[in-house]
């Protein structure tokens, strides 16, 4: 339940708890070491996400491959400093960039059988399961703002939006939902 958005039987919007987020930029040669230190192999295929554990619960790990040398790593808030330290020490010999962006974004889960259709009110991508299968993660647009869309299951999307644009996103999604009642 998110303020300003009315859930229906066909879709629900949930705001993520505070999380630690990092942007890792590194060449392919650093992937193995990074995955080992992170505790989750970083997906090699571009526009794919991987995870284990339950969001916000201890040990949960998310890795999203969003640019050729760009991964987003999302972990429980309390584990951020340790994860960063482990990565930095494992990647010491590889040129890389690890930047804390925990507060840059707001995370949401949009779920339900109507979730994909609702996103298509403002997102121009083909969100059919054939074109955008579970496991796919990519940046795109929702109306006027950029967002990250990661499909975890057919009716389960995790979304990340820049902090200051999140209120617009929620309002725009709520407006779009009026066409999906």
């Amino acid at each position: 339940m998110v303020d300003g958005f009315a859930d229906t039987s066909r879709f629900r919007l949930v705001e993520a708890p505070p999380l630690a987020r990092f942007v890792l930029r590194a060449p392919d040669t650093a992937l193995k070491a990074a995955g080992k230190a992170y505790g989750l192999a970083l997906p090699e295929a571009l526009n794919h996400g991987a995870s284990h554990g339950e969001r916000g619960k201890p040990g949960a790990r998310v890795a999203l491959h969003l640019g050729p040398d760009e991964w987003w790593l999302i972990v429980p808030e309390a584990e951020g400093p340790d994860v960063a330290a482990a990565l930095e020490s494992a990647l010491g010999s590889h040129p890389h960039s690890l930047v804390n962006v925990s507060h840059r974004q707001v995370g949401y889960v949009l779920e339900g059988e109507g979730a994909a259709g609702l996103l298509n009110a403002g997102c121009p991508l083909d969100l059919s399961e054939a074109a955008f299968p579970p496991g796919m993660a990519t940046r795109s647009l929702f109306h006027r703002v950029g967002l990250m869309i990661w499909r975890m299951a057919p009716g389960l999307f995790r979304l990340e939006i820049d902090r200051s644009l999140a209120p617009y996103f929620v309002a725009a999604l709520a407006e779009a939902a009026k066409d999906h009642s």
Partner: protein
Amino acid sequence: MTAFRSPAGGRIDRSKPIRFTFDGRQMHGHAGDTLASALLANGVHLVGRSFKYHRPRGILSAGPEEPNALVTIDRGGGRETPNLRATQVELYEGLVARSQNRLPGLRFDIGGINNAFSRFLGAGFYYKTFMGPQALGGAKLWARLFEPAIRRAAGLGRAPAGPDPDRYANRFAHCEVLVIGGGEAGLAEALRRSEDPACRVILCDEQAEFGGWMLVEAPERADEMVKALSARPNVTMLRRSQAFGAYAQNFVAIAQQLTDPLATTDAEAPCERLWQVRAGEVVLASGAIERPLVFPDNDRPGILLAGAAETYLRRYGVLPGRKIVILTACDTAYGAAFALQDAGAEIVAIAETRAAPGAGDIAARALARGIPVLPGTTILGTTGHLRVSSVRLGRIRPDGEAEPSGGFTADTVLMSGGWTPSIHLFSQTKGKLRWEEGLGAYLPALPAPGQAIRVIGAAAGEMPAGMRSPALGALPVAGSPDRVKAFVDFQNDVTARDLRLATREGFRSIEHVKRYTTTGMATDQGKTSNLNSLGIVAAETGRSVPEIGLTTFRAPYTPVTFGLFAGQARGDLFDPVRRTPMHDWAERNGAVFEDVGTWKRAHYFLPRRPVDATASGHAAMHEAVQAECRKVREAVGLFDASTLGKIEFVGPDAAEFLERAYVNPVKGLAVGRCRYALLLNEAGFIIDDGIIARLAQDRFHVTTTTGGAARVFGMFEDYLQTEWPDLKVWQTSVTEHWAVIAVQGPRSREIIADLVEGIELSDAAFPHMAVREGRITGTPCRLFRVSFTGELGYEINIPAGLALPLWEKLAERAAEFGGGPYGTEAMHVLRAEKGYIIVAQDTDGTMTPEDMGLGWAIGKKKPDFIGKRGLMRPDLTASGRKQLVGLVAEDRSRVLEEGAQIVPDILAPAGSHAIGHVTSAYSSAALGHGIALAVIEDGRNRIGQLLHIPMERETIAVRVVEPVFLDPEGARLHG
């Protein structure tokens, strides 16, 4: 039972009567009616006045091509839509429709005076009058007399005055096949393609029901096909959905009407939806449109297309008249004749423009039914004021003229000039067309490269022989064709004579003829008139139709509401509004906000005590800004700088990249130190500035201006990826991760000192232009010792989600010290007192570092940086360039106007060369007088000079001074 409703038949639901009003008159129709069919059922043909001559006009067609029957539908509460085609408006209980273009009423209209002067309002009237007003008594006469009168009389509908209360939705959709048109061909194609369950098919049709002409001829078959399609989950069926634009790579825009007029609808629900469909293949099954015939007085109410009459009868159960004359150039009108006769109408005669009536025994069947068939005959004229009452016929002679051959009384005339394939959407995608002589029409030939578009059915010219007619243009008349009004374009009141006149005046290309005569323009875009226009121009210029060319088909195919294009991008959703973590606090504390890009920034804070009611807003602002400035200079101020762009550069080559990007030397910057940095474009001009802070050997925190953040990030990405891809460095935007609280003023150290952990704050340990990482109130932070005010100051970077509690604590403390928050206006004043520039206020994209007195920032020994070569261009090193200086008016209390132009001579005549202009101007609380920054040619050599600023009512004398007004030694920076 209304007068003209047939006793049975049609698709309407006779068990559901519906009341509606037209021009205030209460009428009845049925569920399933359109407004047009319901009006005809009530015997109403007269529905509007024409655009230019205000001639009475009736319903011509039964479809989207309708040029005449434009009405305003008023749904109450500001929901008023003009220019809707009555043929496309579904009837619903309580519908309120009004006719348009009538002064004062539909039956009596003084605008009809234009008709009497029609000889002067012919082709190109507007052009001629604008170009040569002398002939009409001069420009004044035009402006005072003609223009207001014509503007009042001509035009279509009226735009609603209030905001549109309706909602509009948008959907992006993807499919393998998009079928446009739900007639027989479209339905069959959709059925065939959707057999493969993996093939997503979208089928759209502008009508409330699928079936097209089948709804007239074989409705049961249409129902079966629709039922079969509806059962398939891979098929999306869009009713009331007009594909109005077809674009590159099979991208089609569809306007869907959502308000089901017969259902009570959710007030929150949108009334229209824009579908933006990306298809693997577009199949165009848009059918064909019947052409009117061009004969004298062919525009009277009661004269309509034969196919439309058959549609009204068989689909809607409405007889358009009881005593009917038919004029036709093809066979389909016979079907209308037979059906109408069966329904009880008298078919007075079928006049055949062809010498030999059509295929097979069709004429014989007519004769057998007692209907006279008159070959080689046309209509020479009609009578009837508000409705046709008689026709005069003429026999077409071999020489192409006609001679009178009697006449009939009639209340209805049906015409058919053959059928034109609807190729508009195909042509919009730039597909190539070919001329089909036997059809008198263009057909799709070759799709444009990259387009997967296929045209099928009647739209592709697949029509039975009976629908085909090569006849185009004006029919023969008796005597001079210039003495009659034979309308080609009903909506724009363009006659055959207008077109002939245009060609005689030298217009030969159809594009020029169109613009000169307005044929084919306005809401119907010539759907019923274009080919007849071509025929007339071809005949008149002795060329073939293809030689004349074809006007470009453009979107939208039919009118689309502005609301649909705006979608949900209105009000708060027009553009994102970005707010900082401190926004709500600022709002609670009297902040007045200003827009900076899409950000809301606190401009100034109005004190909570009631503002003097007599003070203007400007005075209140002035007072607030002065107070905020004093607090910073005398105690401590808090400023929300969160909107600043922030980029983190990390990697072994981070210093090398920044050294190449900014004008400053960066490699030598020590860890823990900051540098003011200037960014140029390759031309050598300042485009941004900020602070470069070195956090570690391979890690930098760089700030940009608020407005430049996205642009600068994109520019750096360009250089990183494409210019110097060998450098091992990455940038990450942290603008939104860090909120920034600037704490500025002599007491600033005191209010943060005991909150900070792990950072020694003494001037020696943490000097001006230093950066440290540590904690504040237990939260990790990046603390900068920087100043944009000239005071001792800090900028606290703290994770955005944790910023508000810190701000609140600091605000409390600041108040105890006699300080408080300040907004962007005070920030501007404070920095101007110090001569600090604001990029894009004091610079305009043509200023170099040297121009702004910032040449010291440039790393002179660097082999290259962005803009270095640009700065070496002769014009950028020449003397006499504009330079930043300070200005103080001789009347020192005076605050100059930003943008004011500066001249050296007090008596400079208007139009004199200005040697510069004011870029920033404020009232300085600290100095007690007005100050300004300006850029002036050779400015630094003019310091001490008296210059002048000519204003509207006076000339202001100003003295050129150094741009640093306060504390030039910088003593205050060190607390």
